């Protein structure tokens, strides 16, 4: 058991895995954040529905880009995953609240 977990830890500490994990957080968690931000803005912005959808969707790509940059700028990939997922969860809760 101990050997097994050590092997896992070694694998997780490998640079290639770190990079893959970081890229994963940028691509998937980043998208999740952009999607929830888009969904929230679409119902929360004080405009006509179709207008707020337009604004929300147009801005969501900025959110995505910033999230991806964030993923690569924090010290550890675990933190990138954690922060982005937490932020998305927060936004999702807000969507449930507003909608």
């Amino acid at each position: 058991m101990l050997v097994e977990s050590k092997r896992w830890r070694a694998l997780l500490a490998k640079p290639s895995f770190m990079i893959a994990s970081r890229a994963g957080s940028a691509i998937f968690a980043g998208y999740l954040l952009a999607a929830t931000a888009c969904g929230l803005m679409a119902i929360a912005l004080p405009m006509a529905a179709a207008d707020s959808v337009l604004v929300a969707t147009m801005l969501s790509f900025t959110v995505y880009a910033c999230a991806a940059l964030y993923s690569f700028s924090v010290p550890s990939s675990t933190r990138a995953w954690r922060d982005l997922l937490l932020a998305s969860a927060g936004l999702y809760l807000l969507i449930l609240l507003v909608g």
Partner: protein
Amino acid sequence: MKENFFRSMTWLHTWVGLLVCWILLLVFFAGTMSYYRHEISLWTKPEIHQAVMQPYQHQQLQAQINQGQSYLANHASDAKDWHIEFAYERRPYLSFGWQDQPEEGQRRGKFHEHIITADGTDVVTEVRESRGGHFFYRLHFDLHYMPAKVARWIVGFCTLFMLLAIISGIVIHKRIFKDFFSFRPGKGSRSWLDGHNVSSVLALPYHLMITYTGLITLMMMYMPWGVVTAFDGDSRAYRAELNPQRVSVKPAGTGAQLITLSQLLPQVHSVWGDTPIKRIAVRYPGDANSRVSFYRNTGQAVTDQRTPLVFDGVSGEMLSAAKLPSSGARQTHDTLMALHTARFAEPILRLLFFICGLMGCAMIATGSLLWAIKIRQKQQKRLQLGDKPSFGLRLVEGLNLTFIAGLPLATSAFFYANRLLPEVMPARAQWEINCFFITLALVGLIACINRSRRCWQLLFSVAAIALLAIPLLNVLTSGQGIIDNFVSAQWILLGFDSLCVLMGSLLGLIGYKLRAPKVNQARRTRRTSMPPRGQIAHVAKLEE
């Protein structure tokens, strides 16, 4: 990630750039070609290079509409829809077109287009099958040989990577203003870095704009979540609110006499004044539910909204005012779309867009070349001992050769195929496109075997000669040379020939610069064959 933010961004810039640069180059290249989409399409149809060109004639409008209606009634009485396309600057001829009723299980029927001669007496019906400029237009977001949806996701993914590469590129660029003015040729990787900087920074607003607006054009596919929360996922309701006029009708199935189209002109005039009309579309001609739509030429207005005036095809009642509800959000969206498609650009501005597009290609190409050169530098010791370069390096160098040298060559192959394939053959349009990709694949095959500087030189020279000979090809296969086109003031065809010659000369110049260095080898360290020397202190950062 790395020790600090700056280092992380440098790393990110290198890798997001490298990962997608070849698809991006293809997309950027095809997108740049699309600025001349209609011009290329005209060039690929030599049958209509004579006798059909005419300017838009306001006085003739009524006569042309009447002629079109009677022509279409005679030739396409049971068509699904009719189109009358009027001449305008980028498409200087009048045509009548229609779509057959779709066959079982098909969404669209076959399209036909007949072109009217300038004197209005004759009709050109036999035009060779070619996708022309639309091939490049579609290529830049639908790619080819794959479902459009898959391709659009791939392109969207690459575009987002490009956005990341640009933003991180700005972040790591400390001396953006100073580098603006520095180009130090003949200094190995230093020069390539300078070249990368110049092409990126000079056209930076363009690169940012085209990348972001590229995402905007397909945003509802990439990011449908606003519709999900605000409209419960009902995209039809969303589109209806966005544009209440786009309610589509179904044919009634009962026949009714179509109104004389030219009778609608006074109503159109009362809304639009003397604005040139671009096209008239009739849906379900001869049906009780037929609809007639007038589209105008929006000219140089920065807008992408092609909102028609819609009439009931039987009673002639105007069903829509041409004005859409307007708001800040809509105008922003419209402007972003218009910036991407650049429909408003008159010739000089269009040329500027084209040049910016080429700078984008140069940015991507120099970036990937820079990577290859620096990795080769790193492996120099190994290489001197007689080892093979690493697989990654060989792959990057091969892909560089394939796409950078291959794309101009494949494009000229497309143009040659357009003129040299038999005029009538099955799947002709597809074969022109196949020629494009076969050429690209051949260059790829060469790249597997030989990626030397000589090979680069050879490929560039062949592409240069092919492009320089385009005017010759044109005169031999269309019977209309540069001089004829000049005399008859066919600026579009003339422009096509001149641009080919210009691009050919540029490629020729690159080929010439690539010739084997005789003296002073250290000064000319280019491409991949020579390990570059010179200063590397600054660029060494990028290697991490």
